[in-house]
């Protein structure tokens, strides 16, 4: 396997809804010659159907990635393979696909999930995605270059609902998550710690009883001379 230009630390974890045995969110991380690719699939609703839809999206990504398909194609194929109709009438899986190539390019493709938070040296920056409509659903795609100590954070929509019962005027939105990640960021912070913090914050805000599945995925570029690069799977 070709060595990456920038070492990448990737971590993703999901937390079940309180009292639920099956998780409607799935995260899959694939490392290959092209780079590191991860999918965060968020099955809408909950229970078995959401888990199956999320699982299907993950399987499709793994299979298509093995064939060397670009992630825009994978995203389009996943959308086309899901039941037709908008979110109000049909069950489908929202997802975020993140890929960092061995050349140091970042590709993001997502639909139905909150925007990916991109931290450049700890400061949030916008990715300016391109929108494309497939089967009535909008796929947002973005491309950027990845530098040292850059960090990308993807979360499932369940995490945004963690602060629903709290007395927060601005709520627990992507803006707050972005600010939280910026505050927690240090040059030596690991992806695992950022994921742990996000899920712990969600758990705290829902008073230990999440009303939705929580999922978080973090890509963390390290300095080139670092050797202790790890991968934390599910």
């Amino acid at each position, binding site marked *: 396997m070709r060595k990456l230009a920038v070492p990448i630390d990737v971590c993703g974890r999901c937390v079940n809804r309180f009292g639920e045995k099956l998780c409607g969110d799935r995260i899959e991380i694939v490392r290959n010659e092209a780079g590191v690719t991860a999918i965060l699939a968020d099955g809408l609703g909950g229970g078995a159907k959401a888990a199956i839809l999320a699982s299907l999206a993950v399987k499709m990504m793994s299979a298509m990635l093995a064939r060397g398909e670009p992630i825009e194609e994978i995203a389009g194929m996943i959308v086309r393979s899901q039941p037709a109709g908008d979110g109000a009438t049909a069950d489908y899986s929202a997802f975020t696909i993140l890929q960092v190539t061995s050349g140091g390019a970042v590709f993001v493709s997502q639909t139905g999930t909150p925007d990916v938070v991109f931290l450049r040296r700890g400061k949030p920056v916008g990715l300016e995605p391109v929108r494309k409509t497939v089967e009535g659903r909008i796929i947002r795609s973005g491309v950027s270059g990845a530098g040292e100590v850059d960090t990308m954070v993807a979360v499932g929509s369940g995490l945004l609902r963690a602060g629903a019962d709290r007395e927060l005027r*601005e709520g*627990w939105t992507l803006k*707050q998550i972005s600010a*939280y990640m910026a*505050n927690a960021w240090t040059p030596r912070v690991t992806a695992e710690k950022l994921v742990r913090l996000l899920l*712990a914050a969600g*758990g705290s*805000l829902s008073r230990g009883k999440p009303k939705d599945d929580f999922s978080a995925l973090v890509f963390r570029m390290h300095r080139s001379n670092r050797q202790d690069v790890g991968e934390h799977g599910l």
Partner: protein
Amino acid sequence: MVYKTLMLQLYRPSRHKRDLIDRALLRYSRALQMLLSRCEAPIDALAASGARVSQKGLLAMVDRKTSRDLNEFHVQPFKDSLKIEFAALAAAYVRQKRKHPGARYPFVHLDAPRYRAAVSRCVDRLDRGLISRAKFESDCAKLIDREGRLRPLYFGRYAVDRDYCLLYDEFKDRFYAKLYLLNSADGYAGKTAASSLSLRYLAEGLPPMTDRNGKKRYIVVPLAFGKKQYADLKRAVENPRLLHTARLAKRDGRYYLLVNIACEPGPALPAASTMGVSRGPAGGVVYTVCGPGGELLKQGGIAERAEPGQIVYVLCKRIVDVARENVSQVILEANGGKNDRMPSPKEADGPVLSNRRYAELAAVLRYKLPEKRLPPPIEVSANGLFSTCPRCANRTARNRISDELFACVECGYASEMKWIGSENLAGRLIKYRRDKVPLTVSKQNDSLLFYNKNLGFRYRLPVNVTDYKPMYDELDRYLRSLDGTFQKDARKYAVWKKLRQSPSVRDAVRLVLK
């Protein structure tokens, strides 16, 4: 000892008694003003010198001649009180003057000639253009307000034959006040109005009051009060030592006796929970009640609307109610919550409690809680209270996501910002109990050196000894050797006390490798 003031109204005093009281108040005010005027120069000199201020030194300023001159005001019964009040006013003025050089000399009574002279001075300064019209109006308004105002009469002691005392008629279950207002020359002949009553002094053994022959220097007046004051007076019947100094005041044509009474509550109940009370970012105060293990039992905010002078008492009442309901040990921010880094959101529901008001609240709670048989509040450092994580104690400004949201960057604990202060306070005592005393270990010449600088403990473990038991035994001996000795160093005392209270020294320390 904690004191509180009972406000007792003199119930319908006769015209004769009203005249006597008015005359006594006027004489007292004029005499006090004379004392202050005469000693202005030496007090100013004392303030400028920076020398230590003592009550003895201030009382010495009232020399024999001044003391004799006081007799012209017929204030012989209040001479001691006058001197004590003069010393208190002078000491307060010297403190103020040293802190704020522009502080004005105290002025207690403005009689008619002085009032006219002061108004003339104001008019003169306005005519000469030295002050603006607004300043002139303000100064005149102050003079008009002060003119003829009488200083409340201070009774420096509680005694049956001088100053003042209370009387009790056990058959009618009524209370009376006996006030010494006259000197022997001004005394009046005749029976007291209370001669038909079976009055007893509120003093040791409840001795009966008897009318003596000769001129009377005192008046006896019935008292009117509410249910709470009645309960306090009944306590005083059982224990008259609770009664202390008093003031006689006239407000809106009515006369009041403000009696200082010691609060002597029963033994405090053992606290079953801790209750942190912090200032609320949206106004009022916020509380969190935690169980013995740190589990959250109750959380809430108290934001009452009341007059500025009453808000402290209204908040205090609610806090005491919650503490009583949960049998809680109340924990407050020290120094009025200075440096607590409380956020101040723009959309606050009510006025935010200032540091001064919070300090007043703490002062009131110090006696209100023991009254309800709860332990007095504990005040802990408020430094960075709103940026410290209640779960892991990580203190950094990065824990604040916004003015309303807190999320710890170390452990991930997240909550509304308003609860953070009280949660930290509620958990502080539990954290103190859980925290162990650090004992540093360093390796020196093949042996281990154990020490704690705060405690002043050092012990070198013999070479090739791997069991730490001799060190713990030595630490135990050292702690016992400090029993009964006065510890001037507060840190040393705190560490010693914590270790001595622990059932096992071994469990109370943690070893820190250097």
